[in-house]
């Protein structure tokens, strides 16, 4: 959602504005002097540059002012706005792209100890193995203590039909692991068993179906918080949509802040803490139930996390959104997030609280502290249940108190798997070996060895065994097949390095660059006000992450004019660092599949087939193989696939890049996106003051724009045909009345009102006398009919313009556009008064008697109150403006009163007309009556290609006025063609044959070979009580010259003969108008 700065109202959402096309294209001073080509150039030709472009915009939902904006068409950035009539400002430079990490000192310096930090020891390698304290009754893989689960709150759940126990604080995945269940799916194409692979949103395998309390497909078990009574089942790669309506509430809310911090890990917490007490408005959003991020998984500095979270919760201008995933990053720092509010409560969720909420956040500044995802490696049979990302296994041990297995091999290319191995060992998992591709793995290997763990440097895993779960892992020196060793284990932990979570940064328009040090794509530059901190920026050392986060928060705070504070940061001991090795694939000695995208079953072989077919871009290999297109969007597979394609093509991965990151970051359900905009709230329903009466009297309704208009009022089981014939008969023979309040009404005031309307309408309005009414047609500059209606002259300088129901807002916008941008010198103002008046059409030969009986002060005789006059009087005791106009050809009045009295008037008419059989009628009858008289409905009988002359309304096009909108176009060659389509009547030869609207017309009784020349089409078609037959209106080529001709209308498989007639089929001499 762009933020467009209205010159008057300031920045507002793009949705409040209307686009008006290229600016500075003035209306020609003398259109008549232009050649056809010059006039066509004005009408139809506009620039289409790439880059800055001056455009007209209207703040349509705000102050209704037209203004100009210079927008960069390549970036959508609004470079300048200025008022209508002002000169285009000097060229404005586009915003420069900012570095993702502003003012961050080089890595070496940021490793300096932050202020106030002591040098106590950090987590040290455990030198002794804990007694294998494992096992909670019923949960064989649950450690007897530890973790952040609430062991006092035991929960029962069902998976694939079996009942299990877990704890509050578990995810479905951690609870399954606690029960020894790791296989949670079968793969989509190959049907291979797959196990829980990660501990977060990046999960490609364990995507499950929730069965109860409400069916929901394709949720990663690693993100489903456990609740009592949860029923889930494993999926063969695809879920099932619910077949019943979702009973839950979903809603949305707008939020604004100075600083949005995405991610409450160490960097995000530090950033928010720096801003917390500055007075700046801060939102901190994190997808987990509690802050901490990666620290929850490593178990480090949790006291600091708790203390910081408490400070944030207590800060008045800070909002911490837990269980909230920021999933989209749009223009002008508009971000969308989804908060899961009651999912974790299961059946205890209160039904008046929305289950999920979309947050539409507008942030002055954003700090992305979204962390990093560990990536896997492509080796033989790397997909078996029991293969798991190393840091995820560490998370299960520390955060959930769960052992993901008993005996493990750890396979890594970098340091980060070592602390995982040490933590697992300390928790009682046997670490058979750490297999490190690096020949010299450095200090961490020494720590592991001193903890009694075998480290195989320069080695790699080349294959696995096992069906339902890994049973053995084969290891060999990296790049060789000789010297193999096999380990009997049930767990294989993998770390192929880390990918910064750059999704949101990329969505924001940020560019990524490949950084050789971590071997990953990291955020580079972005035009939006965003910074990236922590491992999302490619910084993986915890001390540096904290400093970076605090600095980013402080900079954002200062930029918003507030004073940041230096947040207390935990003491973090410096950790040894050895460079990672950049490895994507491990050569397989066998033809075992090496999976790249587990969710799509895409292998190295598949990617080789793609590059073999000549594909050279990751966007193309993605589409060819589907790698990265599953609902995990390739979080663990994307960069791996890029790396492998680079290897296959023999190019550098930095040159190849990544595929495009698009919202949403994680899947969001349609129910959530729809929110409350469903059912009755999906689209506004506009009603008149008489709506309740129509409902009570059995009206069926027609939608006209957003209005509900009575369509017809069936009585005693009538069908539509019978009801409409009855209503028509009443209007033609007795008296009938209709609610016409929906017609648009615009008050036009000012000394130049007449001159203005003369320019706007094709006919002359300035000569209209006060007290009189004139029908008018409004056209676009191209001469095509845009709207029609009556114009009432209220006073010398005041008119009331009526518009068609659906076009009221468009006509007012149209008036304002011309007034504000072309004719600002005209002293005239336009104000919508559509709802200021309720209007009742009183129609039929007896209407004068009914009106007369209710308006004793009104002289209703034809001489006193002639056609196209209006009078102010009292009708049924209500102040009223009565207009003698007719849309049916009958004697008729339109009575306008305050809507506050509309029911009084309506009921009085109903009562007074009872003696004459007064009949309420709806829009269908109105349409029949007007069609019998050949009155067109703009938008039904016209389609933007029809001139007043085409409608047979040359009489409404002034020959006297020097100019009006559309005039010049009537001299164009195209508008004077003899074969233009004219509005004519059609009479089917069979008086009962009905021509569906849209039916084509052809010349011959036998269809010739295609292409069949089409002469035109039916625009309106009805059964007429007055004519005793069917009839239609149609636009026919050269129609007026064809009157009397027979044409044919293909209806179904028949060609119905029809006769072309004048559009005025009823009372052509107009004898009924005066009663």
């Amino acid at each position, binding site marked *: 959602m762009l933020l467009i700065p209205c010159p008057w109202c300031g920045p507002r959402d793009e949705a409040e504005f209307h686009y008006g096309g290229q600016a500075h294209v003035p209306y020609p001073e003398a259109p008549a002097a232009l050649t056809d080509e010059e006039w066509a150039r004005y009408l139809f030709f506009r620039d289409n540059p790439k880059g800055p472009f001056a455009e007209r915009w209207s703040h349509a939902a705000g102050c209704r002012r037209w203004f100009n904006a210079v927008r960069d068409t390549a970036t959508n950035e609004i470079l300048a706005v200025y008022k209508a009539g002002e000169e285009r400002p000097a060229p404005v430079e586009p915003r420069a792209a900012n570095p993702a990490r502003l003012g961050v000192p080089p890595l070496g310096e940021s490793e300096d100890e932050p202020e106030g930090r002591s040098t106590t020891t950090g987590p040290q390698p455990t030198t002794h193995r804990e007694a294998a304290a494992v096992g909670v009754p019923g949960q064989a893989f649950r450690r007897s203590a530890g973790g952040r689960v609430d062991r006092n709150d035991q929960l029962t759940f069902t998976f694939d039909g079996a009942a299990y126990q877990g704890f509050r604080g578990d995810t479905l995945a951690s609870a399954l692991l606690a029960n020894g269940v790791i296989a949670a799916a079968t793969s989509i194409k190959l049907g291979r068993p797959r196990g829980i692979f990660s501990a977060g949103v990046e999960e490609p395998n364990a995507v499950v179906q929730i069965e109860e309390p409400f069916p929901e497909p394709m949720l990663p078990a690693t993100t489903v918080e456990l609740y009592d009574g949860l029923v889930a089942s494993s999926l063969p790669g695809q879920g099932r949509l619910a077949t019943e309506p979702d009973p839950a509430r979903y809603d949305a809310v707008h939020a604004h802040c100075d600083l949005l911090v995405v991610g409450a890990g160490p960097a995000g917490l530090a950033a928010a803490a720096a801003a917390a007490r500055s007075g700046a408005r801060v939102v901190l959003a994190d997808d987990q139930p509690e802050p901490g991020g990666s620290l929850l998984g490593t178990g480090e500095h949790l006291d600091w996390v708790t203390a910081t979270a408490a400070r944030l919760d207590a800060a008045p201008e800070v909002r911490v959104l837990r269980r909230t995933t920021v999933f989209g990053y749009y223009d002008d720092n508009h971000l969308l997030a989804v908060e899961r509010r009651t999912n974790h409560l299961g059946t205890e969720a209160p039904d008046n609280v929305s289950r999920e909420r979309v947050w539409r956040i507008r942030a002055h500044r954003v700090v992305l502290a979204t962390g990093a995802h560990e990536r896997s490696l492509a080796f033989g049979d790397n997909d078996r249940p029991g293969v798991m990302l190393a840091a995820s296994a560490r998370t299960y041990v520390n955060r959930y108190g769960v052992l993901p297995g008993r005996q493990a091999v750890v396979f890594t290319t970098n340091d980060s798997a070592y602390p995982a191995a040490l933590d697992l060992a300390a928790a009682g998992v046997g670490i058979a070996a750490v297999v490190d591709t690096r020949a010299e793995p450095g200090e961490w290997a020494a720590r592991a060895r001193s903890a009694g763990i075998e480290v195989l440097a320069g080695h790699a895993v080349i294959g696995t065994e096992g069906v339902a779960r890994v049973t053995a892992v084969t290891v060999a020196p990296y790049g060789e097949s000789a010297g193999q060793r096999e380990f009997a284990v049930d767990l294989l932990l993998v770390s192929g390095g880390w990918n910064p979570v750059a999704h949101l940064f990329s969505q924001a328009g940020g560019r990524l660059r490949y950084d050789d040090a971590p071997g990953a794509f990291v955020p580079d530059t972005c035009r939006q006000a965003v910074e990236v901190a922590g491992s999302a920026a490619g910084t993986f050392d915890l001390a540096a992450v904290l400093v970076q986060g605090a600095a980013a928060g402080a900079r954002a705070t200062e930029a918003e004019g507030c004073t940041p504070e230096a947040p207390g940061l935990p003491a973090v001991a410096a950790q040894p660092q050895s460079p990672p090795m950049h490895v994507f694939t491990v050569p397989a000695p066998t033809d075992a599949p090496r999976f790249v995208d587990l969710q799509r079953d895409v292998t190295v072989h598949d990617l080789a087939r793609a590059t073999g077919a000549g594909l050279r871009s990751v966007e193309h290999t993605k589409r060819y193989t589907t790698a990265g297109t599953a609902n995990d969007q390739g979080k663990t597979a994307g960069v791996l696939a890029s790396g492998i394609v680079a290897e296959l093509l023999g190019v550098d991965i930095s040159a190849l890049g990544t595929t495009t990151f698009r919202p949403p970051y994680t899947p969001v359900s349609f129910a959530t996106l729809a929110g409350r905009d469903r059912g009755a709230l999906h689209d506004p329903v*506009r009603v008149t003051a008489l709506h309740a009466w129509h409902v009570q009297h059995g009206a069926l309704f027609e939608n006209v724009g957003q209005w509900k208009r009575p369509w017809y009022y069936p009585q005693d089981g009538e069908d539509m045909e019978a009801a409409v014939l009855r209503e028509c008969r009443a209007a033609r023979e007795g008296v009938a009345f209709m609610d016409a309040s929906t017609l648009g009404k615009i008050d036009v005031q000012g000394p130049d009102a007449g001159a203005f309307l003369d320019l706007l309408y094709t006919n002359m309005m300035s000569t209209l006398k006060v007290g009189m009414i004139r029908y008018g047609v409004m056209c676009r500059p191209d001469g095509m009919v845009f709207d029609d209606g009556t114009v009432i002259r209220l006073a010398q300088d005041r008119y009331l313009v009526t518009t068609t129901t659906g076009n009221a807002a468009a006509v007012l916008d149209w008036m304002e556009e011309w007034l504000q941008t072309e004719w600002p010198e005209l002293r005239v103002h336009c104000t919508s008064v559509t709802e200021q008046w309720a209007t009742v059409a009183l129609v039929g030969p007896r209407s004068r008697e009914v009106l007369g009986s209710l308006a004793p002060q009104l002289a209703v005789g034809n001489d006193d109150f002639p056609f196209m006059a209006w009078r102010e009087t009292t009708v049924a005791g209500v102040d009223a403006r009565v207009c003698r106009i007719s849309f049916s050809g009958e004697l008729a009045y339109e009575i306008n009163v305050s809507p506050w009295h509309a029911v009084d008037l309506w009921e009085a008419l109903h009562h007074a007309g009872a003696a004459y059989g007064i009949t309420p009628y709806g829009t269908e009858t109105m349409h029949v009556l007007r069609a019998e008289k050949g009155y067109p409905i703009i938008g039904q009988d016209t389609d933007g290609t029809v001139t007043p002359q085409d409608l047979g309304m040359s009489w409404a096009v002034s020959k006297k006025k020097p100019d009006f909108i559309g005039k010049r176009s009537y001299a164009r060659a195209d508008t004077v063609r003899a074969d233009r389509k004219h509005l004519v009547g059609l009479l089917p030869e069979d008086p009962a044959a009905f021509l569906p609207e849209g039916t084509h017309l052809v010349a011959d009784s036998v269809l010739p070979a295609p292409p069949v020349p089409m002469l035109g089409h039916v625009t309106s078609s009805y059964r007429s009580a007055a004519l005793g037959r069917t009839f239609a209106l149609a636009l026919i080529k050269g129609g007026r010259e064809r009157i009397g001709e027979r044409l044919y209308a293909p209806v179904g498989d028949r060609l119905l003969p029809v006769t072309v007639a004048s559009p005025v089929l009823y009372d052509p001499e107009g004898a009924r108008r005066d009663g």
Partner: protein
Amino acid sequence: MADTALTAQQRSPLAHAADRLAAVTRASGGAIRLAELPFLAQANVRLDAKGAAADDVGLALGVQLPLEPNTVVRAGDLTALWLGPDEWLVVGRPGTQRDLESRIRSAAGDEPVSVTDVSAQRTTVLIAGPRARDLLSHGCSLDLHPRAFGPGRCAQTTLARTQVVLVARDEPRAGFWVLVRSSFADYLKEWVLDAAVEYA
């Protein structure tokens, strides 16, 4: 139609929903207070803000027409809302619309000024209470924080799917006026009642 006995029989767009609005006020314990303020006199005024008429009209009404965009000036029974650089909405007590219109016209004298009675064009919904801002933020994209939209602010904007004029009342506790086109009032009422479910 002003100041007459007819006033008693007038029907406002949300008269039929008064009970349901009051029920929210009760059920939420006052956290959300909802009511229609029907029949307020409303005059749309158009004149040149730089011309003499602006001051003359202000003097005659006893309330200056605000020149700062999206602000409100109150004096006595009258509230003047900025709607545009040459457009204001003057709101007064029910039944005073004709008086208002004639006072403005006579104050302007020969200066070109347009005055239109729009009292029935919109009705006014009061949304007040400690959670009023939260309720509005479900459907209003403006920043309604007191720093950004405090007393004296107004805005023409979109609430849910309808255009409104939103006015921050004098004290934060007094909540907001939502002026909505009468034909949209029923839709907006349904939307507000549904949004209030969580607070009631």
